[in-house]
């Protein structure tokens, strides 16, 4: 078929069998789904005027997806970004017409993200009629993943387990909420990283090496009660698994895909009679000079000769830098698991 736009053409993943009982959902750029849906719904509701300014804080793939959607829809776009943005991505965003504000100093609490939010609010205030997608709190972020659940249900029928990384909460909370309508017994496994507050660690310490999953603030879109199990994966393991995905399956994906694949492959080995699906959120091109460069990995002290065969089970979430751990979250709320809520900041809605 001929798609109406390139965004429509590549928004859905390719489905790849990674094991007899494991399906990979390989997205070129997963965030196109929420970017497209959030903008469409904002236009329908009148929150965003035709041709109106869109502003968002992001240094990652959601910004790229927004830039593509905004360009095709004729909307100016302002992105407020951390310095972690790499120059090729910045050039690509600007080629798509986006204005990129880079924030170089972290806020006193909440790190760069809090500082970016402050600037974003200023841009929105200075531009009446502008619209902010707010991927961390906008319920149209999780709702945007229904076409992916539809595609999986059509191709595979009933699945027993969904595995994926958690950052904004959109993809895992959204896809699992839809799949559970038709697969009520679905097991949902969230993959987080050390130093992320999402599932009960603190963001104290030297910061997260593995980017694209986890968060230093708690997004309202993370539906904790959706998760049966939570894994924490370190950077070295995720990078090595990313390369395995490429070497063994010719799947050229980013490091969040590697983290998810590490957990999914373990789950598939442990549950040979069940069918799993793992979300692989973006491609490897942005990481050719990092994850795909052995010298870079060695320079970071993250070289691994072999992957751990299995994770360490934790009795409760805590701060400990083991390579790979997991916890039986049991579809509970954050407060239920943590007993007394830790002092985590909420992203303003």
């Amino acid at each position, binding site marked *: 078929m001929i798609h109406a736009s390139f965004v429509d053409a590549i928004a859905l993943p390719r489905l790849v069998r990674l094991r007899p009982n494991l399906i990979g959902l390989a997205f070129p750029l997963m965030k196109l789904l929420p970017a497209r849906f959030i903008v469409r*719904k904002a236009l329908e509701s009148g929150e965003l005027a035709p041709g109106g300014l869109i502003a968002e804080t992001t240094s990652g793939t959601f910004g790229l997806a927004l830039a593509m959607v905004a360009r095709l829809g004729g909307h100016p776009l302002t992105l407020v970004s951390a310095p972690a943005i790499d120059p090729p991505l910045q050039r690509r965003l600007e080629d798509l017409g986006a204005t990129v504000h880079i924030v170089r100093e972290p806020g006193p609490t909440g790190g760069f993200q809090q500082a970016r939010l402050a600037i974003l609010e200023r841009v929105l205030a200075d531009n009446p009629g502008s619209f902010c997608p707010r991927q961390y709190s906008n*319920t*149209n972020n999780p*709702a*945007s993943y*229904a*076409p992916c*659940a*539809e*595609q*999986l*249900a*059509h*191709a*595979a*029928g*009933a699945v027993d387990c969904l595995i994926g990384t958690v950052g904004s909460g959109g993809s895992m909370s959204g896809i699992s*909420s*839809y*799949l559970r*309508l*038709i*697969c009520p017994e679905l097991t949902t496994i969230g993959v987080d990283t050390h130093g992320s507050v999402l599932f009960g660690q603190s963001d104290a310490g030297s910061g997260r090496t593995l980017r694209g999953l986890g968060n230093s603030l708690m997004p309202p879109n993370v539906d904790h009660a959706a998760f049966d199990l939570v894994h924490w994966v370190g950077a070295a393991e995720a990078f090595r698994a990313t390369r395995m995905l490429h070497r063994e399956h010719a799947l050229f994906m980013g490091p969040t895909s590697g983290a998810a694949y590490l957990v999914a492959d373990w789950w598939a080995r442990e549950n040979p009679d069940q069918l799993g699906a793992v979300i692989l959120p973006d491609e490897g091109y942005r990481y050719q000079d990092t994850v795909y460069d052995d010298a870079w990995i060695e320079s970071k002290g993250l070289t691994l000769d072999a992957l751990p065969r299995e994770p360490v089970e934790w009795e409760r979430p805590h701060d400990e830098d083991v390579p790979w751990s997991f916890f039986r979250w049991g579809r509970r709320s954050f407060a239920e698991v943590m007993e007394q809520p830790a002092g985590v900041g909420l992203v303003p809605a």
Partner: protein
Amino acid sequence: MPDAPDAGPARPALPLASRAARGRAASPAPAPANASANDFRVGHGEIHAHHGEIVQGMFYSSDGTVEHGLVTLPCSLYRTRVRFRPLRSGPLTVEPGDRARSRAAARLALDALGRTGWGGSLRIESNVPVQWGCGSSTTDVLATIRAVADAFDTVLEPEWIAGLAVAAETASDSLMFGPGRAVLFAQRRGRVLLDLGGPLPPVRVLGFNTEGEHGVATLTLPPVPYTAWEIEAYRPILGMLRRAVAEQDPGLLGRVATASTALMQRHRPKRRMPELLRLAGEVGALGVQVAHSGTVAGFLFEPGPGAARRIAEARDGLRRLGIQSSWEFSTDLAPHAEEPS
């Protein structure tokens, strides 16, 4: 069953000329307006009812708009027969006399067949329960249209019948497509959103009424206020339904039915649905379907060994919930071999 119409339902253009001008498939062509006045006879039309729906909700059409749509569960227990005796002029009468929609449908069918101004007498015989959500009104209308066409030795295409039925009734089920061809049908527009490419997978159904024997007037129900999340939720349900039909997998069909039942329960709750869902799980049913705008519901069972025992257990369980009356039918198109007991 059809919902109440929108404020301004788009009625299809019915006269033959306008349909043909829009390039719609209208074959076999009905008799032209100047047909010989003598090529008519007593016409007969017959159609089976349905047992509510496998799914009813909101669906994206190919142009990206969202439409109300449904997939009915065909039911051979109930049917409507209509006899039509045409007259070249004079009144158009219907018996029983309260079937005004059938009379309107006959008038529209006569017009569409080029017999404007003709009259005649309709006699309707139906055992379809009224206001249970089994399509009693639609079966009257569809059997009437078939009987009128048959009087002029014409067999109308289902798409054509759908247009007439929606015009006569303001909304219509998809029964005109028959049990051999499951379709996702826009009941208010009278058009197919998606041809599922085959019949529904074979299931045995244990039907019952959730609200006693009194029904609901389905054409006067207010539209369901679906949320944005719910509208999207029918996407994966449809994805699994397409898989169920392609693979002829009764288990997937059961999951689809239960999902649609659960979503409708948020808006038009059936009495004791949590208990009914639990019972269905306990007796090994594949799923639970409902008339989304009616009172019947059904447990779906895999055909074959074990079905009779499961159905007997389900009947016992229903009685414990105070539901004394239940009935059984099969959607399998093939003749059913009796199970050895």
